[in-house]
């Protein structure tokens, strides 16, 4: 049904109206322009011909702005397409919107965007999560069948769980990062958000693969033996035990999911990740260190915002960055610069990279006894705008469940696990390196019992286009 939306003017009109209605409430998009699509791109007979999708605004789409939610790139238009956009283009899918996000991917609420405030479709007083908050809100509201986000420490999975949709963070290197504006290069990966697990899997299949423009991309092993066994045998689940400091509703959703699996006859083992407490300091050390270098290119010389009236190049750079970056970005640049300074490197940066090795080893030995690991995505459901419920510091510490997968480079998927007190709760699955298929099958098993929730006001595309309007 999504296939016809953009090439039928009546349907397109209804679709645009639906989007605009929602957007007045949630502001998930920084740009929305389904009209830009050329006729020729709609006439191609790809598998996703004419299917609209939305893209986080740190992924380059030619001739669209590429703001990264920052003032420093507010008017920057990308001259090129990210590799994933090219791959989707050949399937016929059409990018129609750029999604709001925390500036340069730094945040867990999308409130750190310099350009717009995005609200959670379930409760507009609450955040949609971050940093891919716009991408998650748009999918939850049914504005697009899927969206592309990026996940450095949980930026696809956390907003997906806040909005009640699926969010996939693939294996590091499974998807080309060419065209993804780097936050932390050794952790960043482009992910997919959708309400439809099958569609999410299909999109992942299309965007994955080794890319000559990204020399960190890897070839995924196709169909490993245990993937094939899934239909016959039942996968062994593990879950993270102990006091995880979860909010009541998340705790309830977590328990419910585990109980359900046990009831269904799955083998479920309680496990622990010994170095879990060190994930966040290690993660933030590595991420900010890399970010301090990645964001150095924004200096007002070649493109983007330039401060007026500077008298020396040094002045120009300092003022441009002072005026162009928001507080959270400045904080992380300072942190990253600090941990790399000579004299401090060993204590912070090198130590963090060793802890990362420990995490990789911990998970590798875990996956000798289980096949899939269930754990929370975030300790709380969507919180209110501002820092009243969770300070920026608390938000960072709360990334530990998601950031673990980024440090280890393994695939992870957050899935909806019910609605509690009017807000969706999301959990995650981890799988071993390059076992996305197993991950999707695990989510499918759970999805049979715990379906994707519908946010009030959500309408399927069939309903939108088929009905007489609202």
């Amino acid at each position, binding site marked *: 049904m999504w296939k016809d939306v953009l090439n039928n003017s009546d349907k397109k009109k209804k679709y645009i109206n639906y989007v605009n209605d929602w957007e007045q409430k949630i502001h998930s998009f920084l740009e929305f322009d389904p009209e830009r699509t050329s006729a020729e791109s709609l006439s191609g007979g790809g598998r996703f011909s004419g299917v609209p999708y939305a893209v986080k605004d740190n992924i380059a789409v030619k001739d669209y702005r590429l703001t990264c939610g920052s003032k420093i790139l507010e008017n920057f*238009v990308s*001259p*090129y397409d990210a590799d994933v956009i090219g791959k989707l283009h050949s399937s016929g899918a059409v990018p129609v919107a750029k999604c709001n996000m925390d500036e340069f991917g730094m945040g867990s609420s999308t409130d750190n965007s310099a350009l717009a405030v995005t609200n959670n479709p379930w409760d507009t007083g609450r955040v949609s999560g971050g940093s891919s908050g716009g991408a998650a809100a748009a999918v939850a509201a049914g504005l697009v069948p899927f969206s592309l986000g990026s996940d450095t420490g949980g930026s696809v999975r956390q907003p997906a769980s806040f909005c009640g949709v699926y969010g996939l963070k693939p294996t590091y*290197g499974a998807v080309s990062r060419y065209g993804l504006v780097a936050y932390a290069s*050794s*952790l960043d990966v482009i992910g997919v958000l959708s309400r439809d697990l099958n569609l999410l899997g299909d999109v992942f299949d299309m965007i994955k693969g080794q890319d*000559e423009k990204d*020399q*960190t*991309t*890897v070839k995924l092993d196709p169909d490993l033996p245990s993937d094939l066994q899934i239909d016959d045998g039942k996968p062994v689940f593990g879950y993270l035990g102990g006091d995880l400091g979860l909010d009541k509703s998340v705790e309830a959703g977590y328990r419910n999911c585990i109980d359900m699996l046990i009831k269904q006859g799955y083998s479920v083992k309680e496990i622990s990740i010994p*170095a879990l*407490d*060190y994930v966040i*300091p*290690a993660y*933030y*050390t590595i991420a900010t260190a890399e970010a*301090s270098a990645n964001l*150095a290119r924004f*200096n*007002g010389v*070649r*493109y*983007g*915002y*330039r401060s007026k009236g*500077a008298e*020396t*190049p*040094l*002045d*120009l*750079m*300092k*003022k441009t*960055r*002072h005026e162009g970056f928001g*507080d959270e970005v*400045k*904080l992380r*640049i*300072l*942190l990253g*610069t*600090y941990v790399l*300074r000579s004299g401090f490197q060993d*204590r*912070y940066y090198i*130590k963090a990279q*060793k*802890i*990362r*090795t*420990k995490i*990789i*080893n911990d998970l590798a030995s875990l996956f000798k006894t289980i096949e899939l690991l269930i754990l929370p995505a975030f300790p709380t459901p969507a919180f209110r705008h501002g820092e009243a419920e969770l300070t*920026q*510091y608390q938000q960072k*510490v709360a990334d530990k469940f998601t950031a673990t997968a980024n440090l280890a480079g393994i695939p992870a998927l957050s899935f909806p696990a019910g609605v509690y007190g009017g807000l969706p709760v999301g959990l995650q699955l981890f799988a071993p390196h390059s076992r996305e298929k197993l991950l999707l099958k695990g989510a499918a098993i759970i999805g049979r019992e715990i379906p994707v929730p519908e946010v009030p006001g959500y309408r399927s595309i069939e309903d939108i286009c088929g009905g007489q309007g609202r």
Partner: protein
Amino acid sequence: MQKEELFVTASLARLELDEKEAEKLNEAVTGMIEYFSLMDKIDVDDLPPTTHAAAKVNRTRKDLPSDISLADKMVENAPEKEGRFITVPNVL
């Protein structure tokens, strides 16, 4: 962290900070750095640092020119220019 350290760090990062901002950031940076020292508690001395997350094999590309040119567009994108040169205030 001493405020002086913050300014040294900011200078390395080419970030101008006004007083008010420096106050706030110093508190935030100090808090995080303190939190980072939690890492002192774990013994991972025997482990090698993981600096490269994925590719374990050599990756190179052929030495062949690409023919797509975005040069004009990129010159256009410059905030200030003179002819095809991109300009900044004089360094000297």
